[in-house]
């Protein structure tokens, strides 16, 4: 029984995005996104018998969500590997649907961090071997990885800046994007330093928001109202929790999750028409381009600065909604928005200015945790009918 192509994403929706949640809780946004995603595919809430949820602000998000919705699914999964949780949920849902443990699954997320404030929603575990040294997480962990990467491969702050510039150009074509003004390389270089070598413009947004993805078997997907996005490949990988256990600070677990997804799909990077990468910081797309096979190790910065990601002219459409850097980033687990934008592209429903022509295969990649420490990874490859 092959997993490849056995399930499809049949409904997707974002909740309201931006600064939208004063007085709301994460589950309000999860419910909003779920109602919209069900309306998108024409299934009913009563059809949902599998629930997959991760949240930063809810201790047991599956229970909170199911109580709110008034549903009692026969299968649930609250796997938490940060922003990579949702691609992993799709993989787990694939196994569950294939085995008959559930038939219609929702993968769901919501965050109100922008409205509530970081210090009200985020509390790091105390670690006597790390906390006294006061890393400001997540940025410090990414900054440490960035410094090492620049040292080993000769990448520059200009390379990093060019990731933000490319994302901004995509965002300017998206009426729903948070950022509305153009951004130059020099403006990134001149912006306020947060933790070297990362400036404020190297960091993604923090927005309220959420999303929902409805999945079912490929057979059932055929009868629903939207064109299915078949899941051809999915891969998950766990790296480490503490920095003292890292294997390599310049290579991410995308190497492993990507390979697993490609192997299942029987595809390679050359087959991918659009790429949606979790861009928590400008370093992450550079590392993922390398680790997912779009360029050689150490060449990610050059690949970006050569203009390959630029809207309309670059050869690799990337984060076509403007990504977490410039469009929206439901903090701190933005991975679900990558899947939703990938499906939008496969359906041919992206804004005309950013729709990738003949978009057959999309890859969405999530990273979870802090890269330098606490690092999970998952990769999803989807194909239109």
């Amino acid at each position: 029984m092959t997993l490849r192509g056995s399930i499809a994403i049949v409904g997707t929706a974002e909740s309201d995005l931006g600064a939208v949640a004063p007085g709301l809780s994460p589950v309000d946004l999860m419910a909003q996104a779920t109602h919209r995603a069900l309306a998108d595919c024409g299934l009913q809430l009563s059809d949902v018998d599998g629930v997959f949820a991760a949240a930063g602000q809810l201790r047991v998000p599956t229970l909170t969500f199911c109580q709110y919705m008034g549903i009692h699914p026969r299968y649930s999964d609250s796997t938490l590997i940060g922003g990579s949780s949702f691609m992993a949920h799709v993989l787990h849902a694939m196994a569950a649907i294939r085995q008959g443990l559930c038939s219609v699954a929702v993968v769901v997320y919501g965050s109100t961090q922008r409205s509530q404030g970081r210090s009200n929603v985020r509390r790091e575990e105390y670690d006597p071997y790390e906390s006294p040294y006061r890393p400001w997480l997540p940025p410090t962990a990414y900054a440490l990885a960035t410094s090492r990467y620049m040292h080993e491969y000769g990448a520059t702050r200009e390379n990093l800046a060019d990731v933000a510039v490319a994302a901004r150009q995509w965002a300017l074509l998206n009426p729903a994007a948070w950022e509305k003004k153009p951004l130059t390389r020099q403006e990134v270089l001149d912006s306020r330093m947060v933790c070297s070598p990362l400036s404020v413009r190297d960091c993604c947004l923090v927005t309220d928001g959420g999303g929902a993805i409805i999945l079912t078997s490929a057979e059932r997907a055929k009868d629903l109202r939207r064109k299915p996005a078949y899941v051809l490949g999915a891969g998950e990988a766990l790296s480490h929790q503490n920095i003292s256990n890292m294997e390599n600070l310049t290579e991410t677990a995308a190497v492993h999750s990507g390979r697993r997804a490609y192997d299942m799909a029987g595809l390679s990077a050359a087959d991918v028409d659009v790429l949606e990468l979790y861009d928590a910081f400008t370093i992450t797309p550079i590392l993922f381009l390398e680790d997912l096979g779009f360029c050689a190790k150490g060449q990610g910065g050059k690949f970006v600065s050569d203009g390959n990601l630029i809207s309309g002219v670059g050869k690799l459409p990337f984060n076509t909604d403007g990504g977490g850097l410039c469009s929206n980033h439901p903090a701190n687990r933005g991975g679900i928005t990558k899947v939703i934008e990938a499906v939008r592209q496969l359906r041919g429903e992206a804004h005309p200015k950013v729709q990738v022509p003949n978009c057959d295969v999309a890859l969405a990649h999530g990273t979870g945790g802090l890269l330098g420490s606490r690092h999970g990874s998952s990769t999803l490859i989807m194909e239109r009918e």
Partner: protein
Amino acid sequence: MAAQRKISFAGTPDTNPETKPYWDACNEGKLMIQKCLDTGKHYYHPRSLSPFTLSNRTEWVQASGKGKIYTFSVMERANPPFTIAYVTLEEGTTMLTNIVDCDFSKLKIGQDVKVTFIASEEGQKLPFFTPV
């Protein structure tokens, strides 16, 4: 030597026999790490079982206190700014730490550093590193 910022510590060295030798040694100005006797490899943070083999055939050893900066980041938005680094010890294991008592703009990856101990507000001393 005064710390450049308040250092807060909330560990429980007195109640955890697995890690007590580490914290006691810090207070005496010694950096103790552990060695896995199955593999000969050193490791940090302290724990009774080897992270390489899960065996309890481990022993405490005093580290030389010398190491190299593996990577670092200056926390420019802090007041005053401070530097977070991963330091790879001569014995091969890596620690998260701060680099102190130096001009942060002159720091380089690969630079030699040595351990120094600074007391937290609660009194427990902790290892920091400074350029050689």
